């Protein structure tokens, strides 16, 4: 069994890699890159050479290529100590001509080096001459020299999978930073809670780090799941446009809605009503010196904190709605399907069949709007509003999500039951004098439920992904909307991240389904010997 599961997991891992590869080829290889600018208001403002450089800058931002302007190359050389600041400043100005004929001698020398460097590293160089109008530089027409290199897809794939699990350690802060002793410290008394309590010690074990990315690596607080860790973070790719600069995994799991402010004592002793969650502090180099507000509040560069908000995360909303509707599906769909099979051709069977037909045939959009219309007429809230929360807001999304799944549950349960009713063991039981009800509930149902049981892990896991259409119709701020936003805004890394999330769920639910089926059905065995 263990060997079998391991084999399946490896297979699953391989197929996840292939799926991500396919999506990367689609997005980075086949998609027309100019599409990124179709909805970009900044793009139309750029003209002449600045439009070209803007395009390459954006492409770098969106992860298509590596873009190195000549000026950055010189700055890099100066930083490495190859040239001094004076030479850098003197070599930086470019001549206006495209072929470089009016460059100064020094510039010519470094431009030649730049070309050499680009060729060595496989970069392509583009030099744009100044665009002039009436002898003067046209708007956006400044001369430009830069090199670029497309990221190859296998390399991108490797880097992506390498970066998914980030383990925090004391060498995360750059080595040239003087931050004192780099170490992990364990304390029984949480300094934040202690400060909050007016300096009186509060018992709450905490592991803190210096030199790590997160300041607090393990801590307790009053929010679910009460114990939190920052040793291992999952990163699925940084968003560019949907949630600027935030990792996909975090934008799915971080709380949303309005700030929950409470009196807070900062490490410096500064007090303020704030929604900051000091336990989430991460290191940002030089941030304290750059910002007066941070100097007032923090003692070190661990200044980037998340905020405490009133509502659940995207994943939270999707999962809550999904899980309740899944439970409804099993509670309602299974018994109705069983009864439809038990009293075949009866009134329940006929009504149920019409319902199944309605759900299977009518476009999902149509019946969701019909349910919404009915719910609205009954006075239920028909749009989700995080700031004005009421429990009844959940009713319509949950019902809309459950109704179609109930129909398919009824359909399959009925079909499995009826298939079983014609099998030999049922005829045998009947000839042995068992009552129909006994045969039905003691034997047929057990066998017919097995394929249904196989689907349970999948339906529970996929409750998390959120229903695209339901969430959109009712404006639920769930995970389903993330993918659609990403596609509409060409946010490539979010698309890849969400795909990975879906693929992992799909592989896991298949494996768990088979394992669960093997557990309830003694006839199924995964070991070679028993087979």
């Amino acid at each position, binding site marked *: 069994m263990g060997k079998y599961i391991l084999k399946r997991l490896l297979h699953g891992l*391989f*197929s996840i890699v292939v*799926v991500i590869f*396919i999506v990367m080829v*689609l997005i980075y290889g*086949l*998609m027309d890159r100019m599409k990124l600018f179709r909805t970009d208001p900044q793009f139309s403002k750029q003209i002449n050479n600045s439009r070209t450089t803007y395009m390459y800058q954006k492409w770098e931002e969106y992860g298509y290529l590596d873009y190195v302007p000549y000026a950055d190359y010189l700055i890099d050389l100066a930083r490495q100590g190859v040239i001094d600041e004076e030479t850098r400043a003197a070599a930086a100005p470019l001549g206006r001509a495209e072929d470089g004929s009016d460059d100064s001698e020094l510039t010519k020398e470094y431009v030649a080096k730049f070309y050499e460097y680009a060729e060595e590293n496989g970069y392509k160089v583009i030099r744009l001459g100044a665009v002039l109008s009436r002898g003067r530089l046209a708007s956006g027409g400044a001369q430009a020299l830069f090199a670029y290199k497309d990221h190859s897809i296998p390399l991108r794939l490797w880097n992506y999978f390498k970066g998914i699990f980030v383990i925090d350690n004391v060498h995360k802060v750059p080595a040239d930073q003087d931050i004192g002793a780099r170490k992990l410290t364990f304390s029984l008394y949480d300094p934040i809670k202690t400060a909050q309590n007016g300096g009186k010690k509060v018992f709450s074990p905490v592991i803190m780090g210096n030199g790590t990315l997160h300041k607090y690596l393990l801590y307790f607080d009053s929010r679910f799941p009460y114990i939190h860790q920052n040793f291992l973070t999952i990163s699925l790719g940084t968003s560019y446009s949907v949630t600027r600069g935030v990792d996909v995994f975090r934008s799915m799991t971080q709380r949303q809605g309005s700030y929950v402010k409470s009196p807070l004592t900062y490490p410096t002793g500064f007090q303020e009503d704030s929604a900051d969650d000091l336990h989430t502090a991460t290191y940002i180099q030089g941030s304290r010196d750059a910002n007066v507000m941070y100097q007032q509040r923090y003692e070190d560069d661990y200044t980037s904190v998340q905020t405490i908000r009133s509502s659940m995360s995207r994943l939270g909303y999707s999962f809550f709605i999904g899980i309740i509707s899944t439970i409804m599906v099993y509670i309602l769909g299974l018994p109705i399907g069983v009864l439809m099979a038990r009293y075949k051709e009866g009134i329940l069977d006929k009504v149920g069949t019409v319902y199944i037909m309605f759900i299977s045939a009518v476009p999902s*959009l149509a019946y969701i709007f019909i349910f919404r219309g009915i719910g609205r007429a009954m006075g239920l809230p028909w749009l989700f509003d995080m700031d004005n929360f009421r429990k009844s807001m959940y009713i319509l999304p949950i019902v809309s999500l459950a109704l179609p799944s109930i129909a398919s549950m009824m359909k399959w349960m009925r079909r499995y039951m009826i298939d079983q009713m014609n099998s030999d063991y049922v005829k045998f039981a009947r000839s042995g004098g068992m009552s129909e009800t006994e045969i039905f509930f003691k034997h047929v149902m057990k066998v017919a439920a097995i394929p249904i049981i196989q689907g349970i892990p999948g339906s529970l896991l996929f409750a998390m992904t959120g229903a*695209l259409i339901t969430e959109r119709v009712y404006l639920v701020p769930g995970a389903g909307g993330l993918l659609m936003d990403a596609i509409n805004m060409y946010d490539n890394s979010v698309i890849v991240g969400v795909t990975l999330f879906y*693929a992992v769920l799909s592989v896991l639910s298949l494996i768990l389904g088979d394992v669960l089926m093997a557990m309830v059905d003694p006839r199924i065995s995964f070991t070679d010997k028993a087979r």
Partner: protein
Amino acid sequence: MEDFNKKYNMTDAELFAQIDKDELASEKITAPRYSYWRSVFRVFFRKRINIIVLVLLAVVVIFAYVYPSIIGFDPQVNPYIYVNEPGGQHLSPKDAIEHYGFALKWLFGAGATGAPTFDAIWNGSRISISLAVICAAINMTIGTLLGAVWGFSRRFDMIMNEVYNILGNIPSTLFISVMVMVFSPSFWTLVFAMTILGWLGMAYYIRTRVIIIRDHEYNLASRCLGTSIFKIAVKNILPFMTSVIVLEIAAAIPGYISSEVFLSYIGLGMSEASLGRLIYEAQTAMVTPGWGWEFWTPVAVASVITVVLYVTGQNLGDASDPRTHM
């Protein structure tokens, strides 16, 4: 015997004639004349509801395919000839008929641009139905053929199972959305996106059915008697598959219409004025009181079309199962 003789006043020789034993006829196996397709239609038309559904289907096909070409509705040339009509936009059917006088095209009112919703809907239906039929035809053909080979050949089975395990993990909505994003959102892009992986499910389903039927005793017997694989496939297995295939097509066509509507609704549909596109464009009008017609009429027509197609297919599928021909 004697009673007969008395009754008809005839002798035995007059009543009975000796017939010679026909050696040839005794070799023939007699069975009632059976024609597969005639039986399919006999069973199909036995249900009254099917006649109603077929009439509805004919109406849908005429309105979707014949009507737009008769009235010359061409969204490319000048669909919105009523744009400049003062007060000609966002009309309910009642207002439209009051405004223009009664005509078939004002039956569903007028849209945001003043174009008759009725015409736009049927033109959109033509595009949506065509998309669904083309996608279903491609997926079902490739799926059935590959599925049959997949079921018969054990070596191919091993390769295809791996392919299925890998590609089956791609969520189809995600894949179609990404494809539409990557390529331009046109009719043929959508066909491409829906068919490039769409056949896989059908092929797997057919493969499983073929494996089940392939190992039945009568097929083993048939092979022992030296029947070729091709003949077994066509004569022994295909009749069982016909109803399965028809049922799958019946579920698939409304399914494609449904996903087209859905994709358009989330803004990823095609640029042609399909049903989904109409619904997408009428979204904003829906929340305005009195303008709901623009949204609900295409939704209602889409529902009627899918239900008619679904019911026809289901009942045709039932009728094409030889076991119902008794």
